[in-house]
């Protein structure tokens, strides 16, 4: 016998409430705005070819791709504002949909419109049971950017060295450090440290995107979180140094930010 959606919704809500009162859920984030039923249609139109009907990242086209499309089933996402290992916020997933992932097959989905993006996010979350039983942790706080300057870049270069970023990303940021060889992601696929001189950062080019990426790490990959070890002031210097590695950055920064 099928349960109607109308009955199912209060059921799910009731269970969520039960989880909440049992003290398992922490934080208040994660209020769903999207509709997973509509999201399924969006997913089957645009996402299924790469991410697969089961959300396992093994759609028809996945075999031809590197890096591989995300496997959603464990709730492991690279780009998050939340600490290492945490589920992402809906706004983090929205961020990836808006920007796409530079240097990969994942395009920007800006054209879909906000409702469709919200709906497809709600649907993507149904692939990982974690989203039903867990809340994302509190996002890291990012203090205001003190501004790009030559002094900051210089200090950032020292931070880059002090924190051994070059061990994987190379002394010049080209992704050719001595530990760059043989790295694997959670799925056992080969993965390379990013070449920071490319001119675009995969998860977005805003200074806050760069800040967030090394502070929270990229879950599912070898890139660890530095939020426990790098101070916010040092982190901004490091952002400016990373920006300076590409000739395009300084002019972007002075023009717009």
């Amino acid at each position: 016998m099928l349960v109607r959606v109308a009955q199912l919704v209060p059921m799910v809500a009731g269970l969520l409430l039960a989880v909440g009162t049992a003290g398992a859920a922490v934080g208040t984030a994660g209020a769903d705005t999207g509709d997973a039923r509509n999201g399924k249609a969006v997913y089957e139109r645009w996402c299924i070819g790469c991410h697969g009907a089961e959300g396992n990242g093994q759609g028809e086209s996945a075999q031809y791709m590197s890096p591989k499309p995300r496997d959603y089933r464990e709730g492991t996402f690279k780009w998050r504002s939340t600490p290492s290992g945490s589920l992402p916020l809906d706004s983090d997933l929205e961020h990836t949909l808006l920007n796409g992932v530079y240097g990969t097959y994942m395009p920007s989905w800006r054209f879909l419109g906000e409702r469709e993006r919200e709906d497809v996010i709600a649907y993507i979350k149904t692939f990982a049971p974690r989203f039903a039983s867990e809340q994302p942790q509190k996002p890291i706080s990012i203090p205001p950017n003190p501004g790009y300057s030559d002094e900051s870049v210089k200090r950032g270069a020292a931070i880059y060295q002090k924190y051994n970023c070059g061990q994987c990303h190379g002394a010049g940021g080209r992704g050719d450090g001595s530990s760059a060889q043989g790295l694997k992601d959670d799925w056992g696929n080969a993965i390379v440290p990013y070449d920071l001189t490319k001119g675009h950062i995969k998860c977005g080019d805003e200074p806050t995107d760069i800040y967030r990426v090394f502070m929270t790490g990229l879950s599912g990959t070898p890139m660890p979180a530095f939020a426990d070890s790098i101070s916010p002031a040092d982190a901004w210097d490091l952002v400016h140094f990373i920006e300076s590695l590409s000739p395009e950055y300084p002019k972007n920064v002075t023009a717009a930010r």
Partner: protein
Amino acid sequence: MNNRTSGMQCARRSFWLPAGLAVLGIAGSLAALPASADYAVVAVTNGGSIDGVVTLSGAAPAMPPIKVDKNPDYCGASIPDPTYTVGSSGGLANVIVYLKDVTKGKAGPSEPLALVNDHCMFSPRTQGAMVGEQIKVSSDDTVLHNTHLRFGQNNATIFNIALPFKGFSVTKPLPERPGLIDVKCDVHEWMRAWIMELDNPYYATTDADGHFTIADVPPGSYTLEIWHEAAGEKSQPVVVAAGKATKLKITVAAK
């Protein structure tokens, strides 16, 4: 608008499966939640102990030393492979032993679990833990390490933190679910450790001579589980009598 309407129609039939899964997920987590609540801490006044030794049958397989190709100036050119660490009397180190299905007994550890990045190896290599216990990860090394905890079953990341300096440490909770955790350092891929998360505190790890002791066990019949990173798993029944030490000799075969 058109898109949304047709979307709803075509989605209607197949929505049941993911929705059902989500509900199952919630129900599952509710069932799993009291895992530690299923275990009641009580005063154990008449407890017995299990004193055992785990030995490897036959000679340990020859393991070539680990060839160090990352930071050899600090880590050294090679490191002995610790997979089969066998003492002079044949005892096997780093074996995790634990009792299954214990619902009440002694309290769990009060100090956080420790995991040290020590000369480009993890120390200890293996250990037991209570579900949701805190773990303190630290580094005694001057090179960059990352401590990357993953569920043993599917390698899904639990957390992955950078340890950039000597003396740096971070304390975080382990997940609220029992199971094997596989720890690696991606920077130095030979660095491995394992943590067996359990829902009761009756566990131990064998020392350099293969010895272990599990103390304050309420009298009764139990199943003892034995786990080694390469030799694999086995289990055997064990009876614990009040105030007595049960002596056990366990043999595992190398694989």
